């Protein structure tokens, strides 16, 4: 029990960024060293061989055809897959030098530092204010709530639209506003790493633009990993891009990593044939 507690405590507190394996073409320190060997759902092998180190203060994009396991890998970075019965991962995810799948680690503590924005907007059925305050309350935040909430809503480019109706329901907002509310909710606790699973798929181009600008601002302070189907979006925002593909050769549908490189290089000069074909649009 004591050992557990100290592990948890240092998870959030460890100030230095320790890294296991250096990233390929590493520019900054590796915040999260993710090395997936296999991910199973029950007996179904969903993903194999994906090594995606995430660099601090960068935006990392995951792209690839549907079903190749982008969400699966992303969700295993803050142990959201723990809720899927039958989920099993081989490999490791080291966050600030600690294995988040190590036996003593509390997944709740992991998720406090590693936030997530989902594909579908999912605000709570309560006021806008309470939605954003949720994470603060969870973390027993003792400071100025109003200030934090305004900061988060400004950060999510939603403040001007909702500042007069903070007490109205979060569900009464438009889909795009709801998604930005969810982003505000996630960044209110200033997570170390923000995971975003197709955050713009429910948004119109203008709202999408806003969210992209927001991500570029946020990366000054935070680190972001984003799944997207929009190749232009990856090119606009991502420093580094991981391209996943599906292997159907063994009869199953197993996703795996084809290449993971700085975005400019990946799109400018793809090394692999599948990548070239995918970004040309041959598979869609």
């Amino acid at each position, binding site marked *: 029990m004591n050992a557990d*507690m100290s592990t*948890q*405590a240092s*998870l*959030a*507190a460890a*100030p*230095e*960024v*320790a*890294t296991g394996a*250096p990233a390929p073409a*590493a520019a*900054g*320190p*590796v*915040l999260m060293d993710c090395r997936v060997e296999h991910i199973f759902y029950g007996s179904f092998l969903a993903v194999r061989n994906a090594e995606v180190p995430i660099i*601090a*203060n960068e935006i990392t994009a995951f792209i690839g055809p549907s079903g190749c396991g982008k969400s699966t890998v992303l969700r295993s970075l803050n142990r959201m897959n723990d809720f899927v019965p039958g989920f099993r991962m081989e490999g490791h995810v080291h966050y600030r030098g600690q294995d988040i799948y190590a036996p003593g680690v*509390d997944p*709740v*503590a992991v998720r*406090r*530092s590693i936030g997530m924005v989902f594909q579908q907007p999912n605000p709570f059925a309560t006021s806008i204010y309470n939605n954003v305050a949720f*994470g*603060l309350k969870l*973390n*027993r*935040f003792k400071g100025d709530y109003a200030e*934090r909430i305004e900061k988060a809503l400004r950060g999510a480019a939603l403040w001007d639209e909702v500042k007069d109706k903070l007490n109205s329901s979060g569900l009464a907002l438009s889909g795009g506003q709801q998604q930005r509310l969810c982003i505000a909710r996630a960044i*209110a*606790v*200033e*997570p*170390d790493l923000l995971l975003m699973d197709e955050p713009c798929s429910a948004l119109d181009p203008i709202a999408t633009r806003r969210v992209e600008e927001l991500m570029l601002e946020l990366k000054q*302070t*935070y*680190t972001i990993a984003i799944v997207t189907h929009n190749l232009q979006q990856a090119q606009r925002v991502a420093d580094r891009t991981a391209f996943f593909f599906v292997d159907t050769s063994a009869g199953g549908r197993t996703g795996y990593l084809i290449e993971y490189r700085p975005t400019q290089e990946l799109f400018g000069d793809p090394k692999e044939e599948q990548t070239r074909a995918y970004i040309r649009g041959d598979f869609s």
Partner: protein
Amino acid sequence: MTPSAATPPRLPVARPPTAWQTGANVVFRGLTHAFGGAVVVLLAGIVFEVLRHASPAVSKYGAGFVSGSVWDANRNEFGILPEIGGTLYTSFWALLLAGFLGVTLALVLSQGFLHRRYEVVMKNVVELLAAIPSVVYGLWGIFVLVPLLRPGAAWLNDHFPNFPLFATRLSGPGILPASLVLAIMILPTVTAVSREAMAAVPPRLAAAAYGLGATRWEVIFRVTLPTASGGIFGALVLGLGRAFGETMALAMLAGNAPNFSWSLFSPGNTLAALLANHFPEAGEFEVGALMYAALVLLLITLAVNVVGSLIMVRATAGLRGLR
């Protein structure tokens, strides 16, 4: 090791869960499991308590209890055959009436006979029927229904004195008023469950029959009712389960007579009414016998409800192929 030059800023808000949060979570989890289990324990406890208190009587009277027809607490002689007969007999009439009316109501409520608005009103009114406490129906039965039935009953008895159903006079409480009120009480169950079964019939089946030129009632008799028959049957069985267990209307209207008669106008008794009427003043021996009777009632209703639920499961499974 990479240099820690570009260290991200300290995390001002996010912190691991406090010991209290983690502990409370574990306790809460245990608590919900325990309370879930407690519901099972509650059911088991009911069965156990009834069994425990009934067991002396069970070993003393054995099967003769079920076939005996005398209930005499002074002589410690107990039998519940008339009550079993009365339970079945009143429930039969109630089910006959409630089944007919309930299925008709369900048709009216599900087959587009009425404008949507009236359909909703009617549905709420039927639900209202279920909301009125049974003791109020009992009161109504005594002071409205019995006087209303008496002239007709007398006429039938005068003209067909040899017909077994009309062999006696309705002097007050009796099988007929009890069965009628019982029918009212199970009508909402029968209606709601069979309405659901009818609503579950895929519209394209009816559309196919309409396309062949069938009239509305031809569609109902040839398509809707046969397809929903499993569910309707289940509704009737569930209604029967309720009828067996219904107490107050029968305690007030059946007449509390310790004998069985086929005549609709003679008083009778049922298991549930027996319990209601005798428990308050029962001595030690009689309590044992009453517990035995309660056990019999428990077993009967349990069996009927399990059969009803199985039929419902079958019926929904059978419809699955149609979707």
